[in-house]
């Protein structure tokens, strides 16, 4: 995969990082590394979230009250900070999903003649 296109894709997705994090945490609490890995695997290795983006995003979401941090221990007995969706976070996820669907729809209509440029 050429580096250039990957970068472009990531830029596009940056704004939706918050949404991805919230979505990932829908299945239960997870630590930062786990979240990054989950997004990566679920996107078939297409989305690699840099730690430099991931952690500030996590803290931003905590600050907004959408996530709740809690120290815990991983399966491999490693001390780690786990993030958990709050009620407000769940509501936010619904909002972001709707917004995303609208945006995809809108972009799709503009891009209609050239479908799925991937």
């Amino acid at each position: 995969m050429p580096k250039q296109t990957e970068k472009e894709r990531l830029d596009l997705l940056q704004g939706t990082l918050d949404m991805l994090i919230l979505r990932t945490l829908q299945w239960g609490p997870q630590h930062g590394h786990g979240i990054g890995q989950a997004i990566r695997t679920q996107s078939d290795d297409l989305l690699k979230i840099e730690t430099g983006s991931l952690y500030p995003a996590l803290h931003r979401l905590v600050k907004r009250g959408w996530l709740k941090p809690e120290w815990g221990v991983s399966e491999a007995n490693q001390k780690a900070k786990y993030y958990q969706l709050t009620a407000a976070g769940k509501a936010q996820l619904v909002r972001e999903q709707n917004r995303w669907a609208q945006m995809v729809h809108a972009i799709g209509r503009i891009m209609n003649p050239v479908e799925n440029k991937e």
Partner: protein
Amino acid sequence: MRPDERELDDEIRGHLALSVQDRIERGQDPAAARRDALAELGYVGDLRESIRRVWYSRAFDAVTALGRDLRFALRSLSRSRGFSLTVVLTLALGIGANAAIFSVVRAVLLRPLVNRDEDRLIYIRQSAPGIGQADMTFSVPEVQDLTSQASTIAAFGDFSTVDFALTGLHEEPRIVHAGVVSGSFFDVMGLRPVLGRLITAQDDGPNAAGVAVLTYRFWTTTLNSDPHVVGKAIRLGQRTATIVGVLEPSIPYPADTELIANIVTSPHHMGALMRTNRSHRMTELFGRLKPGVTLEQARADLTAAHAAMLKAHAESYSARAHVQLSVTRLRDQIVSPARTVLLVLLAAAAVVFLIAVSNVANLILARSVRREGELAIRAALGAGTAALRRTLLAESLVLCCLGALFGVLLAQPFVTLVARYAARFSVRAVGITVDSSVVWVGAALALAAALLLAFVPRLPSAKSPAGLGVPTGSISMTPATRRRLRVFATSQIAFSFVLLAGAGMLVTTLVRMQETRTGYDLRRVVVFDVPLSAPAATDPKTLEFFKEAMRRVAQLPGVRGVSIAMTAPWRDAGAIPLMQVTAEGYSPENGEENPHAKFRIVAPGLFDVLGVPLIAGRDFSDRDVDGSEPVVIISESVARRFFGTGEAVNRRIVWTDPLARMMGPARPQRIVGVVADVDDENVVPSQTMAVYRPVAQMGIAERLFVRVDGDPHSVIAPVTRIIRDLSPEQPVERAATLEEIRSQLLAPERVNAFVISGFAGIALLIAVVGVAGVLAFSVSARTREFGVRLAIGSDPRDLLRRVLSEGARIAIVGILAGAAGGYLIGRVAARFFVDAQVPGALPAVAAAAVLVAAALTVSLVPAARASHVDVLQALRTE
């Protein structure tokens, strides 16, 4: 919720561990896993920083850093207490003076009036510069002409003052100063009552009931804010009135009165003279601009109306008088006398502040040179220029804030002092207290000083060679630093010189005024006001009453003479009419008019009592009564004007003034005596012509003069008792010696000189400390040099001379710079102060001498130290 620094580290460490574990589980060997995980993480510092930023803003970080610097500054300053104390006190003086002056300036010049829509309120004044009348007020016909013509004014308010004998509020009758207004006045002025109501249109007209409104000051001070005062019936002279309300606190302009009554309460205002005579002027006029009308439009409109009036009644206005109209905003009118004085004070305060800051800059500069070692070490350890600057800023912030704190505390008594002073120029200054603006001014000045001072010291850069000499701990001074120190010290001297010379001039002027000969025997004469009510003033029996009173007073022990006159010196300044007069056989030269002379009414014996010498002829006597031949006594200058060196006695004068003609046909009056000229209206006497008439032929006299041997105050009580015995309702007031009256008149000048001298004193103190500091520092920096000089055989006295001459040089250069600057300021100031009296060069020379002497005196200490340097000690210092 907000994670602390440790938690951030823990989280990143946890992430790294998980990442490594993950990689090992996927089959990488531990070393490679760790390497890759770290590579993925990138620079941990950046990551940590970007997470921190979510929680901690840059401002927060800056404040934290500043807090750290401040703690450090406090510690380091507490180690050099003498330095800190000097700096804080110097700044406190500078800031305190400024804060106080500024709060007075704000209160007097900038604060709006309480009146509704005060920017539409104007004051209209008629003046006659041609005959020296700055405020000739208006007569009722004039007011009618103007108000009927003007189209830009929504409404006019008129105000005149009358003294009433008030009965009904106090046990004894008392004379009150009262305003008399028509119903529109309060509405035009935009004032509200705090109690009851004010005077309105329903109180106008001859059939209205008498009503009075109390001023706030009178109500609170003399009536203890009695809430039941509204509705009380009082007597004002012969008329009755009801108190209908109390006025809100407002600036009493044009006159401070006890109460304000409607027109019907004053028989004089209802009389024909007041209502119909165009030259009978006693009304002040105010107006409220129509909405949207500018001051200029109103001025043009009113001036046109006034010009039309002058034209229509040309016979009533002499061309020579140059009667004219001025229209000003009421606020400006009230404020204007105080403006220049306050701005001068503000400038003086600013100069003191500059001196203080420059002195502090000096101290800080010297200190920073001593600290060069410390700063160099910190620079070497990696502190950037910004960090070092911040350290210095923190230190000067601590110093300046402490200075401001003490300065604001100092401002409290200062404001009281300046306000009492300013109250003599502007009624707005009455009751000024320290307002919160003082704190802000103090804070702003402190901040300005702090910023300024933080940039005074040079910073050692890590590269500079100065850094290398550090560990020896010696003081080395670069020529640049020395130059800076000298420039500061010199400019302090320059500023102090300006202030000192200015103060010297004020003091000289004051002394000159105080020493001016007045022609009176000031210490031995007591004057009493014996104000007559309107009916008493025209009652022939009043003269009998005074005769009897004088007879009894004369028998009191210690009394050398007693007499009466119409006016008291200085206190009644401006009340003496100036009237045109001529003499039989005298014709003015071409182009000249008959002279104007002060028309004074005195009783026999007054000249004796006052100590005014009789030059020719005789004094009035008891035979000069109503019905006998009308006689006058003239002053020396009148005699010279009419008769040159010829004999004046037994010649005749004739009043030609329109006002005199109104009182009756002009009959020649025989001159029976000539007395020396006196001017008891102005502080600095000018030549004044006066014509005296005997009380018995005029029938008015309200001032009792008693000449006393010994303590003049001892007669006050017995004289008051004698008059009360004769007429229980007759007020006797304001007893004072002539000296006291005159010194009251000089009070503004005295306070003026006092305040400026205070500033100059502070400036001198600071500047001298500055010079001493510079020399002391320069000596201590050159200890080694002096040691070497002594070692190779220099005369210690030579070193002494060197240091002294350095001090003298700073002083002299400073004085020259100050003189040049002061001369320029003087030139500019002369344009604004019309009556600026420059009392010659003496004060300036004296100021220069004081400065040089002070500078040399304080230079003696460091100079002595230089000449007593211990040679061995000095050579060992490096």
